[in-house]
């Protein structure tokens, strides 16, 4: 046996074992990510009721303080080939209005859209945020999750109508997820993955290549705020502290960034949630971060693959993260959790005046009262 063949043999064995270790680690990591040994245990923070079963998906929620309204996007299921109506509605959170008209307390009102010559037939709204100017004007920014028309749509609220102002599209948008507004026509958006759908996206998730991104739009120009983020989903902004929060679906964590004056982002810390965040709401008063999450990722993957089958449901979870005075430590509480029987695959959350609205990707919109919101 020559030294060459000994060396070749050694290299072969070395390569084999390295590959074995890598493949083993990969498989184990995928299995851990799928949350196979997890489940949720049902509980509510107070009495709950379903607001609507009409729409397949209430994937985006935003609360407008000046109007005491929650704006709701519906019809996300259309992006997954469900035949469902799409649009935007609102819910009035004002309890005084509810006292006047108890019969309509839990009604939501659909808004008509004036498209101003834009073709709205491909509009599948998902993530949404709002900006209230000092003169009372309310602007809505809505992500279109249509696979072939990934755009950001600008609307202005006119009582019960929406006026379309413009649409911003870019080739970088492959899977828009969520949006958070930092000023008039200025916002951050999350792009989940380099591939928009199908098996390429699945492989990207499995390999955890971290090809997602956070983009910043300054009113005229799009720039990359953070690149190489692992599956960014929920995004929220605390304007008092100037902190941007970005959730990671696969990593099951929350990144926080300091927003500098020039709108560049400085990484602060990563909070391990051990649940996959999808939607976010930042309380302006307290700075608490509310998260709508998919706690069992294997269930969610199955549910997103077969969204029209009632039996294939996914767990829902709402977390509330309270930051302590130092801004560096926090307490996590879980106001709501459900195994999917009541609400499946929670995707958005809003809290106001001891009320909570939970939206879902393909199903119902839930309204809950919080009996003890100070400890929930």
């Amino acid at each position, binding site marked *: 046996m020559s030294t060459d063949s000994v060396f070749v043999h050694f290299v072969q064995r070395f390569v084999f074992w390295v590959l074995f270790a890598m493949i083993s680690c990969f498989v184990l990591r995928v299995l851990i990510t799928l949350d*196979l040994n997890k*489940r*949720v245990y049902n509980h*509510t923070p*107070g*009495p*709950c009721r379903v607001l609507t079963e009409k729409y397949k998906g209430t994937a985006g929620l935003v609360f407008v303080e000046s109007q005491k309204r929650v704006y709701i996007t519906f019809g996300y299921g259309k992006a997954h080939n469900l035949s469902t109506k799409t649009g935007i509605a609102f819910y009035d959170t004002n309890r005084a209005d509810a006292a006047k008209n108890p019969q309509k307390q839990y009604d939501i009102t659909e808004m008509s859209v004036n498209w101003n010559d834009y073709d709205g037939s491909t509009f599948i709204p998902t993530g949404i945020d709002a900006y209230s100017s000092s003169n009372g004007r309310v602007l809505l920014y809505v992500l279109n999750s249509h696979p072939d028309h990934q755009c950001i749509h600008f609307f202005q609220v006119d009582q019960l109508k929406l006026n379309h102002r413009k649409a911003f599209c870019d080739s970088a948008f492959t899977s828009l997820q969520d949006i958070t507004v930092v000023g008039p026509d200025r916002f951050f958006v999350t792009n989940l993955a380099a591939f928009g759908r199908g098996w390429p996206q699945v492989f990207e998730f499995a390999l955890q290549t971290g090809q997602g991104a956070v983009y910043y739009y300054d009113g005229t120009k799009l720039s990359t705020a953070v690149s190489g983020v692992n599956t960014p989903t929920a995004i929220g902004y605390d304007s008092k502290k100037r902190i941007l929060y970005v959730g990671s679906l696969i990593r099951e964590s929350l990144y926080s960034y300091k927003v500098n004056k020039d709108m560049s982002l400085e990484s602060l810390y990563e909070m391990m949630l051990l649940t996959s965040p999808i939607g976010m709401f930042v309380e302006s008063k307290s700075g608490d971060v509310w998260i709508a999450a998919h706690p069992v990722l294997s269930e969610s993957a199955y549910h997103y693959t077969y969204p029209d089958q009632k039996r294939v449901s996914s767990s829902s979870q709402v*977390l509330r993260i309270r930051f302590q005075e130092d801004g560096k430590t926090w307490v*996590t*509480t879980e106001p709501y959790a459900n195994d999917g029987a009541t609400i499946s695959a929670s995707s958005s959350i809003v809290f106001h005046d001891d009320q909570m609205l939970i939206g879902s990707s393909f199903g119902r919109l839930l309204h809950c009262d919080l009996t003890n919101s100070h400890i929930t």
Partner: protein
Amino acid sequence: MLLKIVGLALLAIMVQFGFKTLLMFDVNKRIYNHRPGVCRKIEGPVHGSEDIIIVEAKQIAFASSGIVWLPRPETPITWKGEIFLYDLKTRTYKAESLPIRNLEDVDGFHPHGMSYWTLPDGRVRLFVVVHSKSFHHSIVLLDFDEKRRELVHVRTIRDEKFVRPNDVVATGEESFLVSNDGGAQTVNANAFEAISGLYKGGLVYYDGELSHHLLGDTVANGIILSRDQKTLFVSHINKETIGIYEWDQANIATRRISEIHTLTGCDNFYVDESDHLWSGCHPVLKDAIGHLSNPSDLSLVAPSQVLRFTFSKDFQTAELVELLADDGRLISASTVGCPFDGGKQILIGTVARDLIHCDVSVPLDFY
């Protein structure tokens, strides 16, 4: 070539075993806090409230405190075993330690699981699993003297089949079911038993004179009978399941009905007046192990969880409601949850820490 295949197969088995062990220790789990209402620590028990008995007829509760479980030679046992009495009618948030008369081994009294039986004259008889400081086991019968507010020792029962008793269910004046949560008597042996899967615990029935094996080669933690005494619930904490069995006392026989997967380590049980099963659970096993390795170290805490199970009529499925979850700062390593006052209040016990009294102001039926 054959050797290579065998080697690879063994390697795959080892990787799979390692993975299963990691999942068993719940390395990818955590707890998110929530409470059903305002909670308070009850003054009195500080070193455990491992099991709770609610005597509805008298509106009182008993809690066992000062457990010794798989003691380590290097950790001194500085606490004493006690049984506390708590008045459910008032909100004093104070529990009273009951003196025990005629106990033969006062220093070796460390109570664990408990059950009770009402005697014909109305007296309450407690059945208590007791470990000594050197981890010897017995079942102690104590009668509650209401006037003197003390417990009177009636009988101590030792049996070779009480291998490592955990919980007990009274079935008569001197008969009971007792669960063994393993066979190992030391920490290291228990670790081997848990990891290897060669469990030596089980279920034993004592008829007043003789003991009978019912289940073997498993782990039985909390046990309880349904209110009609026909259905037995057994916590197989090692598998994170609850076993449901028919119990035939006349023929001293069990028949397995179903097994409910909980994905959390449920400990002791309570059955309420609506036939819901309540349990305190350990959702993250690695933290529970850390906490129980040195219960006196207050910096070691374990997450807690209180669940309510509602079974289908045939006991094949269960709906789960989570009443409370805590990361350990308020309640560390919960073992049992006992609702009272029509479900508006609940007592929560822990392995080696406080007894907690909570109000319940959230709905539990919401489907």
